[in-house]
């Protein structure tokens, strides 16, 4: 039964999840394990890092994102902000 927030994460074991991390980082991968610290093991992961640069002269915001794929990843829980079923983009 679902009693506390960690139970919601337990429902996502073996499913693909979306993880928002500190430092404008996002991960999408298959959840294989988690603990109360929100340490995670994710499989077939895609990391997206988003950076916003401020163009000096025009004061324009330049948003860039870079992606990286990793086959198996341990994620330390202290950087995790949220975990959710995959967010559909676009």
């Amino acid at each position, binding site marked *: 039964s679902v009693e*506390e927030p*960690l139970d919601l994460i*337990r429902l996502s*074991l*073996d499913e693909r999840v979306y993880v928002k991390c500190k430092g404008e980082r996002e991960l999408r991968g298959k959840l*294989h*394990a*988690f*603990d*109360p*610290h929100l*340490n995670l*093991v994710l*499989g077939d992961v895609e990391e997206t890092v988003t950076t916003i640069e401020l163009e000096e002269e025009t004061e324009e915001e330049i948003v860039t994102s870079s992606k990286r794929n*990793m*086959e*198996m*990843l*341990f*994620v*330390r829980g*202290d*950087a995790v902000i949220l975990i959710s079923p995959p967010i559909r983009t676009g």
Partner: protein
Amino acid sequence: NTTAEFARIAMLFYSFFKTLVGKEIAVELKNDVSMTGTLHSVDQYLNVKLNGARVVDEERYPQLACIKGCFIRGSAIRYIQISKKEVQTELLQDACRKENSAVRK
């Protein structure tokens, strides 16, 4: 039983890393430095000792180029990359489910 109590008891990832001793891993730190090496040992805090350590971007961090072994504080780690073949995902998921219910009792 509070969540803090559960966090203290949870040993899942300590046990997980013990199964990876002797394997090649890549440790990415929160300051963006990445080191690859063989996992020599791990402790309850997920501090990590690496043998045969090599820094990934040697040109950017020349002061780390001659490091052979290192101790990394667990709290400094962002990610640890592992080879998929070293992980038995069904066993890991089962252990995760079991620990989740065991930690409640």
